[in-house]
């Protein structure tokens, strides 16, 4: 049961609200006025028109890619931790042995079609060999486009 208010307390609250109400309304209005007169605060992107200059923010998670140094070499050791971390089994590491008999990366299979871009593989990688890139125009009409081999780049 609600607590009974005395008429004195009710009146005190009433007059208090007559003062605090307009103040809080003016506070709200000051925020919207600031936004209205500051067109720089607008966050909308005019996407197809500004495609050339559009820059995604750094936290954006696009498709997965291997981090390469200036020689085009990656640091992936084919340990397979990302493969086990992936909840959708989108990653398959096909390892081979090099001439010295050491385990190296053969093919890094990445299925974009089943990937949820959760970035768990990036967080689990102990060598910092992979990252999520900034590409977001990923759609395609051919399902083959979603089966990527990350360590085989075009033109190689």
């Amino acid at each position, binding site marked *: 049961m609600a607590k009974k208010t005395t008429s004195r307390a009710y009146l005190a609250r*009433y007059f208090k609200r*007559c003062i605090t109400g307009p103040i809080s309304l003016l506070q709200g*209005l000051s925020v919207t006025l600031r936004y*209205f007169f500051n067109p720089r605060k*607008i966050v909308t992107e005019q996407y197809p028109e500004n495609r050339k200059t559009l820059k995604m923010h750094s936290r954006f998670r696009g498709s997965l890619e291997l981090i390469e140094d200036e020689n085009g070499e990656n640091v992936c050791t084919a340990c397979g931790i990302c493969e086990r971390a992936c909840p959708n089994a989108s990653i398959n590491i096909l390892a081979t042995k090099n001439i010295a008999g050491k385990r190296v990366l053969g093919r890094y299979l990445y299925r974009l079609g089943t990937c949820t871009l959760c970035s768990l593989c990036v967080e689990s990688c102990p060598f910092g060999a992979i990252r999520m890139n900034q590409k977001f125009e990923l759609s395609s009409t051919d399902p083959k486009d979603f089966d990527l081999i990350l360590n085989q780049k075009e033109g190689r």
Partner: protein
Amino acid sequence: MIPSIPHPLGNLIRSVVPYPELAFAINAVIAIIGICAVAFGSAIVLVYMERKVCAHVQCRLGPMRLGFHGTFQTVADTLKLLFKEVYAPGGADKFIFYLAPMIILTSPFLCLCMIPFDYNLQVMESPVAIPLIIAVNGFGILGILLGGWASNNKYSLLGALRGGAQMISYEISFALLLLFIVMMSGSASLQEVTASQAGNILDWWIFKVPVIGFLAFIMFLVSSTAELNRAPFDIAEAEQELTGGYHTEYNGTAFAMFYLAEYINLVTTSALAVVCFLGGYLPPLIGIPVIDSAFSLVPGFIWFALKVFFMIWVYMMIRWTFVRPRIDQLMDLEWKFLLPVNLLLIAAGAVFISFGWIL
């Protein structure tokens, strides 16, 4: 007897056209065309303006694609609305269902007739314009109630009943504040209310009566926002609760008419606020002779349009900033706050007049 209102254009046509009946018909057609042009033109401009203001308040851009910065977006929207199929829901009272949008459109058009856009730019100069506007505003409630009732929809009915209760309550404050201005200026004719504010900017009723003029203006803003059924007082069409309120079941042209009525009402209420508090079509003279003479050269209807658009902008900022109160809070605000303060304000106004404290 043929009714005739003295007016330069009307007198010209009456002197040129030989038959008084024909002259009356021509004058009426001119007036109707003028009012329709103002109504439809302003509605299209205001829908665009509302979308832009709303967008910029919310850090968005609003319509940008069609024409320069989306200027033709509302034209396209209007065309789309007009070409849609008109149908009534099953079980609806067809006659009243289609009558309601027409009723709701009468009051804004009648109010628009009485607004003095300039000294000679007024369809009807009535010595009792303010009581007439208060009376005619009641049509809006009738349209909402009939539309909600005839739709055979619980949401519509609830919205209509809530809207009706709200508008009837706030009509009291609205009327009392207009009567405050009538008391101050000593006339209920909008031309004379405007003429009573002649002089510099301090002679407008918002500043002329110290403190309580400004208070009355703020309260007029509150009660007229409720009267317009706009957020934060859009109880009649609270989307989150009632999907669309009284116009849930309307589509196509009928919906466009409700929409049109809302925006013409916005124009007439802003115009009323401008006439009553902000000096109507008079230029804002500030006492410096050079600027004053330049301001006086600008025709009155431009000043009127500027002031009206400023008021509309204020209404839009209010709409997109404040949150909607519950229906009981809304009634509390009217009956426990606005009405007592209004009565005190009118008493204080009488004291101000009798002691001559008006600037």
